[in-house]
Each structure stands twice: as C-alpha cells, then as structure tokens.
C-alpha cells in the first residue's frame, strides 16, 4: 500500500468507530470504521445516496450517529456542537448569507464571538487576501460568480481556525474550467494551512487528483479506503474496479482449473486466466481486474479455445482521446470490455467498427479481486452504472 500523507499524531485526526446512521427505516450508513490521519486530504467517493454526505455531516455535528463514536484527535465528539469540535464545513450550496457583504460573511464567526468591529474587519480582509477576494469585500454574494462565492465560503470556514475542514461536493456547481482551477486551489490551500480536509465527491478523477486518501463507498459501506493510487490501480473489490473505471473486470463462476490456470464462464464466453496462489473452488466466483491500458490488441479471432489470458470479440466503439483511443469490444466477456490503445500504435493499423480482435495481457498485469471465492451472483452485476467515463 502506498503511503498516505499525514500522521495520527498531529491535529485533526479522525476516527469513526462502528458508526451507523438510520433515518427511520432506511439505513444511510452501516457500521463504518475509518481512520483519517491528521493533515490528510481525504476524499469520500461514491454514487449519490451512498452515505458519504451523511458521514461528513456526522463529523461536522449536523447529524448524530445512531450508533458508534466519532473521534477527533482521540476525543469522542458526538453531541458536541461544531465549534467545539474544531470542524468547519463548506456547504454544497455555499450557504453564504445573502444579506451580508463578503467581508461580513467571512467575519460572521468573529461577530458571534464578540470580536470588536475593527479587528473583525481586519481579520476578514486578511482571510479574503488568502483566497484572492479582497477587492470584493464589500460586494454581496449575489453579485459574485460561482467560483468567487466558493472562495468566500472557503474563507468564511477557515476563519474559525478549524482542525478539520469538511467540503460537501465543493466543485459540483462549477463549470469544467473553474472546477479544474479550484481543484488546484483547494489542494494549494490545504498544503498551506496543513489541516485535515475531508472532501465529498462523486467524481472519480477529482478524488484521484486531489486526495492523499480515497474512501470509496457504496450503499452505506466502505468498499476501500486507501491512497488514490491503490484505489485506482489495486481496487479491493469488483465494485471499486468498476466504479473507478480504467479497469476491465472479468468475473464469473469457476468451471475448470488446473495447476496454473482457472477457467471461468463469463456470459457466453469461457475465459482462462492465470491462477492466484490459492485457487478458488469449482463453482465459486472468480474475479480479476486488468487495466485497460495494459492490454495488447491484435486483429483476428482466437482459434485456440484454450488461449490463456486472452479474450476475443468485435470492435463495437472507437473514441479518440488525443493521446490514446478508447476501443470498446463486444462479446469479449459478460460486461463491457475496453482497451485503451496509444494513438501511435492504433494509427499504424487503424481498426474499424466490426473488426474481429483478440485482446491479450500478461500474468503480472492481473489483479485479483476480493470477491473471489464467494458464491457467484450474490451481488447485482449492474454496479457499473456510475463508473468513470474514461
């Protein structure tokens, strides 16, 4: 596992211990255990309704867990108001007070604490400087663009001097260009202030680009919590692999095995794959992931039914992506199979839709997934609806 920045010794470490949250009959978060080191940039990633915002709100103190404890720097903060926790939240809608100028919005925390007017203004202006918004101090929020409002919201949260900053889908309201700009800005500010950032998002690339630690969630549970690289490159489960994108998941019940290979039934196809150290039993689920960019594609059909680490099919889609091509192959396995081909290799002998192709990978490119060994089809296969688009 790649190292995760930060340590549990500093300020702003977070630990969730057996945290569950139920709203009436529905269970939003189910028995979660999670440790986020102090000073880390952590992204909670998952489709909408997976419970990530609920976790954020429980850390913030805007929601109480039904069961379990929320520890900040080792101290259980359940029941404490947000200020006592040392957390500050940036809301998805920003929630800037429409009747107050930007400076007054930023100074709001100082005002309720009874700081004198002149000092309040001075410190608010300093904070506005940090987010490059000082010239807008006397504007009202409605006069600012979305990106500018976000900077004000960030300044307003940071002025409380929190040890944890909680960001609820902070970039979702911005257009593509601003999103990339603010993404870099958030990271820069986090490096500057050195506190823990917890950032909720449903965009895979955003999480991978920003986070020291990515927590992939589904249906109220944590599927994987690891460094961005591990989550992308070494997904723990088929769900993570499919959700993060960039991987082909080959999955199916074991129908045959010998010393070095396992053959699975994947849709109409039988695929033979190099076996892991401990081979699964016949009839159980065997699931592996192979990165889309680590597969070689050749024209032709696989006449050797016993070919190892290969699938065959027809080209069903071609998408030019600049430096590479996304080649979608149908009939290869039970789910979508995609090969990312470098543009030079592709254009040396361009494929067209309908061409028969064989995709091959080497044994060391195979990543074994943890669902291997379970009874097959206990989990719905249509999990990849929200998978990353590239």
């Amino acid at each position: 596992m790649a190292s995760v920045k930060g340590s549990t010794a500093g300020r702003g470490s977070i630990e969730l211990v057996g945290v569950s949250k139920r709203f009436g009959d529905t269970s939003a978060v189910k028995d979660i255990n999670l440790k986020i080191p102090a000073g880390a940039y952590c992204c909670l990633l998952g489709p909408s309704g997976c419970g990530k915002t609920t976790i954020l709100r429980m850390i913030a103190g805007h929601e109480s867990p039904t069961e379990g404890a929320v520890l900040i720097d080792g101290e259980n903060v359940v029941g404490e108001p947000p200020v006592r926790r040392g957390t500050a939240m940036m809301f998805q809608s920003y929630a800037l007070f429409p009747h107050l100028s930007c400076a007054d919005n930023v100074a709001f925390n100082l005002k309720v604490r009874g700081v004198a007017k002149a000092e309040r203004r001075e410190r608010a202006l300093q904070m506005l400087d940090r987010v490059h918004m000082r010239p807008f101090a006397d504007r009202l929020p409605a006069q600012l663009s979305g990106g500018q409002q976000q900077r004000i919201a960030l300044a307003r949260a940071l002025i409380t001097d929190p040890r944890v900053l909680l960001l609820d889908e902070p970039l979702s309201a911005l257009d593509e260009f601003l999103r990339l700009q603010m993404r870099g800005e958030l990271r820069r500010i986090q490096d500057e202030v050195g506190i823990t950032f917890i950032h909720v998002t449903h965009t895979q690339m955003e999480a991978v680009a920003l986070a020291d630690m990515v927590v992939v969630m589904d249906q109220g549970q944590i599927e994987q919590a690891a460094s961005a690289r591990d989550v992308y490159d070494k997904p723990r489960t088929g769900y993570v692999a499919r959700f993060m994108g960039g991987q082909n998941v080959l999955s199916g019940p074991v129908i045959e095995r010998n010393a070095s290979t396992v053959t699975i039934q994947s849709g109409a196809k039988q695929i033979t794959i190099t076996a892991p150290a401990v081979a699964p039993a016949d009839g159980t689920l065997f699931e592996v992931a192979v990165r889309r960019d680590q597969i070689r594609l050749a024209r032709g059909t696989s006449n050797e039914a016993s070919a190892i680490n290969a699938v065959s099919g027809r080209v069903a889609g071609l998408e030019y992506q600049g430096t590479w091509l996304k080649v979608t192959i149908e009939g290869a396995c039970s789910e979508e199979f995609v090969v990312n081909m470098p543009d030079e290799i592709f254009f040396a002998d361009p494929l067209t839709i309908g061409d028969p192709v064989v995709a091959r990978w080497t044994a060391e490119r195979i990543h074994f997934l943890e669902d291997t060994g379970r009874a097959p089809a206990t989990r719905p296969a249509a999990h990849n609806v929200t998978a990353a688009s590239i």
Partner: protein
Amino acid sequence: MQRDLGKRPRSFYFLAAFFGLFVAFLYGPMSAIFILSFQGPTGGLTFPLNGVSLRWFTALFNQERTGDFAGAFTRSIWLALLVLTLTVVISVLAGLAFRRRFPGSTFVFYLAVASLIMPGLLVGLGVGLTYQTLELSPSWFSSGLGAQLTWTIPFGLLIMFAVLSRFDRSYEEAGRDLGASNWQIFWMIVVPILFPGMIAVALFGFTLSYDEFPRTLLTVGGKNTLPMEIWGMTTNVTSPALYALGTVTTFVSFTVIILALGSIAIIQRRRSRGLLLSAAPVVDEGA
C-alpha cells in the same frame, strides 16, 4: 407597430375589451367618489360638481354631522397595527415550526386554515356569543382583535409557507457551524433573510384588518372601527362627507401598500445589485 396590431388575432380585441370593462368597474366608482369628495359647499351626492372645496374633508372631523369618524379611524389604525404585529410574529414562528413535520402537523395546519373558508359573519357571531356566554363585554381590542386574527393568521401562515419553501436550511446550519447560538441564528440570519416575506405578511395583516367587516361586525363592542362607521354613515349621512371618507381611507390603504412594496423592492435590489453604502471597487474578475 401598425402592422403588428393588424396581425393580432380577434381574441386579443375581445380580451382587451373584457379587461377594459374590468378596469372600468374597478376604478370607475373609485374615481367618481374621489372627484365627488371635492364637491363644492352647496353641491350634492351626485354630479355635476358645484364648485370645488375641501369642506367635506373638514366636516369629517366634525362629530355632530358625521358621527365619530376621527375616533373610528384611530381605533382602526391601532387595531390594524396590533393585528399586523401579532400576525407577523405568530405566522413566522408557526411557519418555522411547521418545517419540522411534528405529529399531527397536517391536522393542525388544516385546523388553522379552515377559517379561510368559514363564513366570516358566523365566526363573528360565534365569538360574540362566546363573549356573551362568558359574560365578557366585547370590544374592538379583545373580541374584535381575536375575530380578525382568525382571518389574518391563515393568510400569513400560507405566505410564510411559500417564503420558507425557498429558504435553504443550510443557512442555519452554516450559522451553527460558525458558532452562532440558536438566538443569534434567528436574529442574525433567519429574520434578515425572511424580512421581505415578513413585510408581505405585515401588509396582508394590516390591510385585511383595516377593512375587515363581517368578523368585526358582531365582535366590535360599543365603539366602531372604520368599516362599521362607514356602514353606519351610508344609512344616515347624506352629504359628500361620505365620499371624503372614502378618499381618505383609500389614501391610507394605498400609502401602506406602497410603503410595504417599496421596502421589499429596496431590500431585494440591495441584495441583488448590492447598493451598499460603502462603494465597492469595480473589479470584474478575481485574481
């Protein structure tokens, strides 16, 4: 422009004529009353004008001729202000309470708004009878006030529902997040943001009370409010003073409405365009 008019369908002219009729019915009598209130000293209740004077306005305040106009007017204003205040306070607090779906909230809501469809005279009669049974003497500031509130609070509540449906809960959470107490959240965030809506409720409270008749008729007690007084005058005053009265009360209503709508417009403009006292530097994009 002429060409555009030529292209208009026949329905346009029909609807325009219908609208013209509506305007004539609405403002025709009002303007007749307005003009006739300036009737000369020797003039009567009908056209033509026999000279122009302010005589009937001064006559209004002369109790022997026209009854207790000044007293009724003062009482009506005070009552309307009282109704306004209570309607705003109760509607805002009730509106905030209804955001939580407490047990029985739907029932309580229908109970509250049911009085909108109850005949006002019967509500007034009921309140009057209750006072009689309890051997209390009805008066404009007790039974009259209560009867009017049964009419204004449902209106206020419905307005607050509309206002609060657009009120983002995260404003309060942001306040809490920034360390404000519940009291500070209410006064520093909720009230300022809801203020335009509160003015609308106040406007309804005032104007509904100011010309309330059916509920007040049997609950007002010994001293009349203005609508009661006008009602009395139509039967026994036969001078243009009646018209002067109409002009004065209409003027008061219009003033209140203009003040209310004007202040809402000013607040909205301040928020959207930011006409703050301190001049903001004109910079279009961030660094």
